[in-house]
C-alpha cells in the first residue's frame, strides 16, 4: 500500500498490486515448504520414504503448481504493467512474459502429470482450464493495454467521464470480443462439467474415484456418445479461444 501511495495508483490498481504481491508471497512460501519437505524426507528419513514424498507431491502438485505457475508471471508482469503505465515496453514485456511463462510450462506440466505421474483426466482438464484462463487473460491484458496507450489519454483530454469512457472506449471497442469469449467459456465449462454431473460428481467425495469413473464410463457406459459429444464441444470451445484468426476486435464495425 505504501508503494501504491508512492506511485499514486488508483484504488483498483492498489488492490490489484496488493493481491498480486500476496500471490508472490504465497508462491514463495509454497516453494520454501517444498524445499524443506524435500530436505526433511531425503536427509532425515532416508531414501526409504521417497515413495511417500512422491505420493505427497502427486496429491498437492496437481492443484498448487499450476496456481503458482500462473501467480508468479501474472504478479510480476501485471505489477510491471501498472508501474510502467503507458510505456509500450511494459505491454510488450507483459505479452511475451505471459506467453513464455504462462503457457509453455503449463503445457509441459500437463504432459508431465499425464505421462509420468499417470494423472487422471480430471487433472488434464484442470490443466486445460488453466491454460484457457492464461490465454484469455493474456489476450485481454494486451487489448486493454492498447487502449491505455492509444485511446485513454485522448478520451480524457476530450473531457469524457468514467461512464462515457467505459461505453465509448471500452464497450464499443470490445463488446464483440467480450461476447464471443463469454460464449466460448460457457461451452468450455458446459463441456467439462456436464460429464461430471452425469457421473454423479456431487454424490462422490473422492476426485480420484470420479476420474476413474469418467475413464471407465468413456469406455463402457451407454452414455459414452453423449459424454464424448460434450467433450468435443469443450475442445471446440478451447480451439475457438486459442484461434488467433478469430479476432473479433480487429474487424471493422463501421
Amino acid at each position, binding site marked *: 500500500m505504501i508503494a501504491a501511495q508512492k506511485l499514486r495508483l488508483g484504488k483498483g490498481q492498489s488492490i490489484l498490486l496488493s493481491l498480486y504481491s500476496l500471490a508472490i508471497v504465497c508462491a514463495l512460501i509454497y516453494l520454501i515448504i517444498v524445499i524443506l519437505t524435500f530436505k526433511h524426507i531425503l536427509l532425515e528419513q532416508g531414501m526409504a520414504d521417497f515413495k511417500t514424498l512422491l505420493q505427497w507431491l502427486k496429491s498437492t502438485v496437481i492443484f498448487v503448481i499450476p496456481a503458482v505457475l500462473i501467480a508468479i508471471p501474472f504478479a510480476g508482469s501485471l505489477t510491471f504493467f501498472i508501474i510502467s503505465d503507458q510505456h509500450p515496453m511494459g505491454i510488450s514485456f507483459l505479452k511475451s512474459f505471459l506467453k513464455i511463462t504462462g503457457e509453455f510450462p503449463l503445457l509441459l506440466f500437463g504432459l508431465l502429470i499425464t505421462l509420468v505421474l499417470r494423472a487422471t483426466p480430471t487433472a488434464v482438464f484442470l490443466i486445460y482450464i488453466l491454460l484457457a484462463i492464461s490465454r484469455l487473460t493474456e489476450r485481454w491484458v494486451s487489448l486493454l493495454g492498447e487502449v491505455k496507450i492509444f485511446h485513454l*489519454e*485522448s478520451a480524457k*483530454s*476530450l*473531457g469524457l467521464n468514467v461512464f462515457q469512457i467505459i461505453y465509448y472506449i471500452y464497450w464499443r471497442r470490445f463488446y464483440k470480443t467480450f461476447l464471443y469469449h463469454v460464449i466460448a467459456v460457457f461451452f468450455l465449462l458446459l463441456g467439462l462439467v456436464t460429464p461430471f454431473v452425469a457421473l454423479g460428481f456431487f454424490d462422490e467425495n473422492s476426485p480420484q474415484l470420479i476420474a476413474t469413473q469418467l475413464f471407465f464410463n468413456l469406455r463402457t457406459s451407454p452414455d459414452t456418445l453423449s459424454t464424448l459429444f460434450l467433450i468435443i464441444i469443450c475442445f471446440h470451445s478451447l480451439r475457438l479461444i486459442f484461434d488467433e484468426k478469430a479476432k473479433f476486435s480487429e474487424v471493422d*464495425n463501421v
Partner: protein
Amino acid sequence: MSNSILRSVDLEAWSFSRQVLHRVNFNVEENKILSVIGPRGSGKSTLLRCLNRLFEEKAGSVVSGQVYFDGQNIYEPQFDLFALRRKVAMIFSEPTLFEHLSVFENIALSLRLNQVESGAEIGVAVEKALNKLDLWEPLKDSLHKSPAKLSLGVKQMLCLARIMVLKPKVILLDEPTSVLGLQYTMLFEQFIKEYSKKVTLIMTTSSRKQAARISDRTAFMLNGELIEIGKTSDLFMNPKDHRTEDFLTGRFG
C-alpha cells in the same frame, strides 16, 4: 494583464522523484498563439499537460502551484475536471481518433459531450465542422466508415474538427504537425492562424521556424525552466538570456 486567459503561478511538476518543471510563471493572452520552444526533454509537453490537468493522470506524477483559467485556480479540489478539458482542449502529436468509431461518430461524440443530442442538429454540426476544414467534399461519402485508412494529415484535421465542435476557449497543441507532410503542415498552420482570432492556442514545437512563422508570442524552455517569454519578434531578434540565443542560433538543441 487584463486579457489574460491562463496564468500559471509557481507551477512545478515531478515525475516520480524527478522534477520536470521548476517554478513556471507565465500569462497567456486571449485569442493569440503562444509557441513553446526548447530542446527535447525540456518540459514543453509536461507544461501543456499541466494546463488541462492531464499530467496528473500519469502514475508517479505530482503537481504543485496554481494555474488560473478565467480567474479560477484549476488545481482547486472542487474544480470540474471534465468541463475544464472541454474548455481547454488538446491535440496530440499523432492523430488520436477512435478508429473503432466512424468519422461521423468521432465528431458526434464531442457534440454529445456538449449536450447536443438531436440527430438532425448533430448532422448539421458535423457538416459545418468538416466544411470549415474543407473536408466535407472528400469525406461526405465515407462519413460512416472507420477513419483508420485515412492519411495522417486528414486524421489530424479530423482531430481538429472533433475539438472545434466542443467550442473550447483554449487549444493545447503538442507538436501537432510533427508527423505531417508539407502540404498538411501548411494547411494546418493556415487554419490555426485563422482560428486564433476566436480561440487561444498554445503550441509546443521543435521547429523554431514554425514558431517564428505563426506565433504572436514565444516561450523558451530548458530543463523544465521557463527561460524567457515575449513577443515572437523580440525573442527571436533580441533574446535577453544567452541560453535562448544559444538555442536560436543552433549552438545546442
